[in-house]
Every structure is written in structure tokens, then in C-alpha cells.
């Protein structure tokens, strides 16, 4: 009885604390290091020149391409939220598939995004396809 009285509150506390910690810490740190210079801390991009990641329809609809863009870069026109962007983006070849997965999953839930969870297996498959 007594142990139960301790166990339940402890579990509750652990649950509460774990909910408060932000997910995708590595993804966030990598985002800050590799992506935030251009796409900005708040994912807003730069007016007309660098597309936003926050509430981006392109991001939501092209989940299978994102890993390839991060690794190999992006050339040519893309349309994001109705606006055309044509500045090229350089790839980041030094990132591992784990790191890329963490970045994507951070972006997918940051700044009001709700693009779900992209498992490593999907990232692997994308990278295999665009090699």
C-alpha cells in the first residue's frame, strides 16, 4: 500500500517532467548549426529569397524529398506557400542519415508544424533513391 502511494506520484512526476522536455534536442542543435543562418531561428526564411520551413506546404507535401535536399542541396525553382523561390541551396554532405532524420523530425514539429514523425527507414530509402 505504502509503496504504491510513493510509486504513483513518482510516476506522475516523471511523466510530467518528460512531457516538458523538448523532443528532438539533437535535431534542434543541428538545425541551429546548419540551417538557422538562412531559414532563421523561427523557420520564417528570408522574404522571397529563402523559403520558410514554418507552416510550409512544400515541407508537408514533400516529406520523401527533404532528406535529399538536406544532403545534396536544391537547384531550380520551387514553390512554397504560393511563392516561387529560385536561389540554390547548398547540400550538407557531412550529415549522417541519423542526423538528417533528427533534423527533419525537429522541423516537422517546430513553429506550429504538424507533419508527423519520419522514421529512419524512410530517410534511408529516400537517400537511397536520390543517390
Amino acid at each position, binding site marked *: 500500500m505504502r509503496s504504491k502511494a510513493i510509486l504513483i506520484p513518482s510516476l506522475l512526476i516523471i511523466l510530467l517532467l518528460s512531457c516538458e522536455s523538448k523532443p528532438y534536442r539533437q535535431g534542434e542543435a543541428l538545425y541551429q548549426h546548419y540551417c538557422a543562418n538562412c531559414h*532563421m531561428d523561427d523557420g520564417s526564411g*528570408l*522574404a522571397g*529569397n529563402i523559403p520558410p520551413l514554418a507552416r510550409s506546404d512544400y515541407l508537408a507535401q514533400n516529406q520523401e524529398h527533404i532528406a535529399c535536399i538536406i544532403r545534396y542541396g536544391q537547384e531550380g525553382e520551387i514553390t512554397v506557400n504560393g511563392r516561387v523561390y*529560385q536561389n540554390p541551396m*547548398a547540400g550538407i554532405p557531412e550529415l549522417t542519415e541519423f542526423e538528417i532524420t533528427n533534423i527533419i523530425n525537429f522541423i516537422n514539429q517546430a513553429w506550429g508544424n504538424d507533419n508527423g514523425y519520419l522514421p529512419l527507414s524512410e530517410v534511408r530509402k529516400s537517400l537511397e533513391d536520390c543517390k
Partner: protein
Amino acid sequence: MKPFLLFATLLFLLVFSCRQPEKQLPILSKGKEVNGQTVYEQIPDFAFVGQDSNLVTNATFAGKAYVADFFFTSCPTICPIMTRNMLEIYKHFQDSTNLLLLSHTIDPRRDTVGRLRQYARNLGVRSDKWFFVTGNKDEIYDIADDYFNVVIEDPTLPTGFDHSGRFVLVDPQRHIRAYCQGTDSTAVKKFMEDIETLLHEI
């Protein structure tokens, strides 16, 4: 009646005592003593090409204050944040006819007039308010020094350039009156207050 009068007088005094003498920005350009007077270096003569293929010279800024910086459009490091902060300055002083903006590309080989025009258009800014200029590379690198900026070509860097991202405020006498680190939003806010102060002078 009497306490009311006292109160009103006090309020009156308080309001007036709060008015400070108008603040002035110091001249930060290098100065030297000539015949017991300090003569400050001016931004030298320049002639660059703007995003409308127009000639941009000192005359473009005659009688006005302007903010100058150095960047390049394909820069993946500090420039996008600098441009975002320049855009904040642009928006804040959009209706002040006495303030202009001048961004020099340090990559004139790739940043052609067409590319600068596209970049400015994408930002949605007016070409008679914010000038994006290109020109002779050596002249741009030389004048960067006069604007307290350092620009170095460094082939070992992935981007090929190393440059300091300072925003510099120049007055109508071509003297530098304030500067800040263009990537630091807090510093840029303070810098905008300096711009306000200078505009009161003009």
C-alpha cells in the same frame, strides 16, 4: 483649490524637468588635428552600379543619412540574418525621406545587376530607397575598409569569403556616426535609435 494648484505646479515642473537636452551622436570617423581643429575622414568618392543599372555615387546620398553594409546573395552564413535586420530598418524608416540604405555585394562576379535586382524585388523593397550595388571588386573591398568593414577572399572557406557584418550609419557630411553588428538583433534595435537621433539633426 490650494492642493490642486500645488499639484498642477508640481506636475508642470516634473514634465519640464524630464525634458533632456537633445542627444547627439559622436563622429566615429578617424580624425586628425589640423591647425588646432579636428578634421574627420570622410567616406571617399565612389561610383557603383545599382539594381536598376543606375549609377550610384555619393551624390545619390547628398543631404541624407544612409546605412551601408557588405553582403552577397549566395552567402549561407551571416548575410541572410543581416538582410533580415536591414529589412527591419527599411520597414521602420520606410517613410523617412532622409534615410537610405546601401548594400554592396562582395561577390561581383556572381552578383550581377540582374541578380541584385531579383534579390531586391524578392524582398519587395523600393529601388530608390535601398540600393544594392556591384562594381569593381577592388574598389568595393577598399571602400569596405572606410566603412569599418573587413572583407577578405579566403579560398579555404566553403563560401570563399570572410567578412564582418557591420551596419554603418553615415551622415550627410560623409562621417560615420554609429555602427553595429548586423547579425545581432538587440544591437540593431539600439542602432535604429541612433538612426532616429541622427535624423533629428538633418
